[in-house]
């Protein structure tokens, strides 16, 4: 198990490192091939590419949902290449993840959806009562706490997902197509929140198809094609 001292390794130079990483699925399908990637703490990185080019594989490798066939994955100085099953929950509490389909529990309220993340991690009730309203305030949903997912808009649902990802105060927030189901206005809202979170020091990894979002951000852009990184620009644009 990794103790507090090891967790402090988050403060090392690179927040995310992928060294010569390849992932080949059974049947020979290549997810990613020879990927070298280093993301510094506090960076806001957009990962772009066509569908099926390996963006999601990259995310799954980072959150230890999959193990690389070759190479090394290091998160905050912690080599998770061969992470033990029992250590995965600890890693996941350090990485917030949001998805295009929000992944909210329909039978739980906004408050319960967020508190759920703390409950499963064994947080005491008083801490849940303290933290949940705070993070809901950060995403501007402190007045919608008792509504159910079907009673709020898509943009608000994504903000709930962001709040849930933030309750563990993660050092990394991975956003996999977070604006894919949103209109322009809600997209702008979500991106603004991500920028705000980034300003507090959280490293953001944004996987997106949205050209406008990427171009407006003017942050680092990594382009993936056919499982390999074909472009890595410090203040880039959507080039595909």
């Amino acid at each position, binding site marked *: 198990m990794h103790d507090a001292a090891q967790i402090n390794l988050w403060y090392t130079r690179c927040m995310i490192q992928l060294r010569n990483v390849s992932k080949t699925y059974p049947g020979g399908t290549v997810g990613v091939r020879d990927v070298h990637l280093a993301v510094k703490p506090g960076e806001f990185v957009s990962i772009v590419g066509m569908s099926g080019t390996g963006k999601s594989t990259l995310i799954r490798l980072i959150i230890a949902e999959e193990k690389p066939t070759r190479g090394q994955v290091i998160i905050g100085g912690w080599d998770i290449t061969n992470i033990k099953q029992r250590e995965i929950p600890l890693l996941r*509490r350090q990485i917030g993840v949001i998805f295009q389909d929000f992944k909210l529990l329909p039978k739980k309220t906004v408050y319960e959806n967020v508190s759920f993340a703390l409950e*499963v991690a064994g947080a005491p009730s008083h801490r849940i009562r303290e933290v949940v309203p705070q993070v809901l305030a950060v995403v501007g949903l402190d007045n919608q706490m008792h509504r159910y997912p079907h009673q709020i808009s898509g943009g608000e649902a994504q903000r709930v997902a962001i709040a849930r990802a933030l309750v563990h105060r993660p050092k990394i927030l991975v956003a996999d197509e977070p604006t894919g189901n949103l209109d322009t206005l809600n997209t702008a809202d979500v991106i603004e929140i991500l920028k705000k979170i980034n300003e507090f020091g959280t490293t953001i990894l944004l996987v997106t198809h949205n050209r406008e979002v990427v171009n407006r951000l003017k942050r680092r852009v990594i382009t993936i094609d056919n499982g390999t990184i074909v472009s890595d620009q410090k203040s880039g644009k959507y080039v595909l």
Partner: protein
Amino acid sequence: MTAFLRAIKFGLQNVWRNFGLSVTTISILVVMLMSVNLIFAISAMTGAAISSVKDQVDVSVFFTPDAPQSRIDEVQKVVGGFSSVKEAQLKSPEQVLAEFTTRHADSEAIQYSLKELGKNPLGATLIIRTYEPGQYRDIVKALNIPEYEGVIESRTFDDTTDIVSRIAIITDRAQMIAWVVTIIFAVIAFMIVASSIRVAIFTQREEISIQKLVGAGNWFIRAPFFVEVLLYCTLAMILAIVILYFGITVTDPYIRTLFGTYQFSLMGYFMTQGPLLFGAQFASLIVLCSLSGFMSMRRFLRV
């Protein structure tokens, strides 16, 4: 402690969300427990029946009316020397006559004959009880010697070995059938519990995937399913005991009538043996269901 209480809460939610399946699972477990208890009831009743038959068996040695007391004492001493003899009760000629008179109080002819005789025509009687029915043969054989010919008038011996062995055969068969039924129910219960857990995992796959996503530990994800299994077992055991209690309350008077003067009560049996019997059943049930639930989780809940 908080995590433990939350696991219980989620486990209760699982049971409630799949209410129909939970009821089916508990019902099967109750049926299985009832069949196990039926085995114990059959075993207790047949055991009591055999004891009752054995208790009724004795050898009566009738002495001649003029047999000297010293010879009677000698026979009693010889019989008492057998390790297989449980009890050797000597009844004096007066006692024998009194019992005979009472027994035939309605028969005027017998009463008249006794009066006409003017003296006690009956000799002393030795009533012998052994631990096992088969042991009477040795005693009868030991008394069947010329030395006692003038002293012992007759011997009666009801050979109940056959009856006892028949009861034993019937008991064995009844128990075997009950065991087969129990095993069948145990297999069904095993599959039903596995299936319930599988359905619970399936219906909560979204919640489980979110639990994993937000960093729930393996223990936390699996614990509610174990709570669910534990709840099934507890409810099934309680229901089985309640049904058994009412079942015995209704049938016990009839069973007691069957045993006549022999003291046997099924309720009494379960009252004295209950803690051990139900404790063992509950422990076995938990082992069976946990194993089933664990296998299901291992297969369908890849944490």
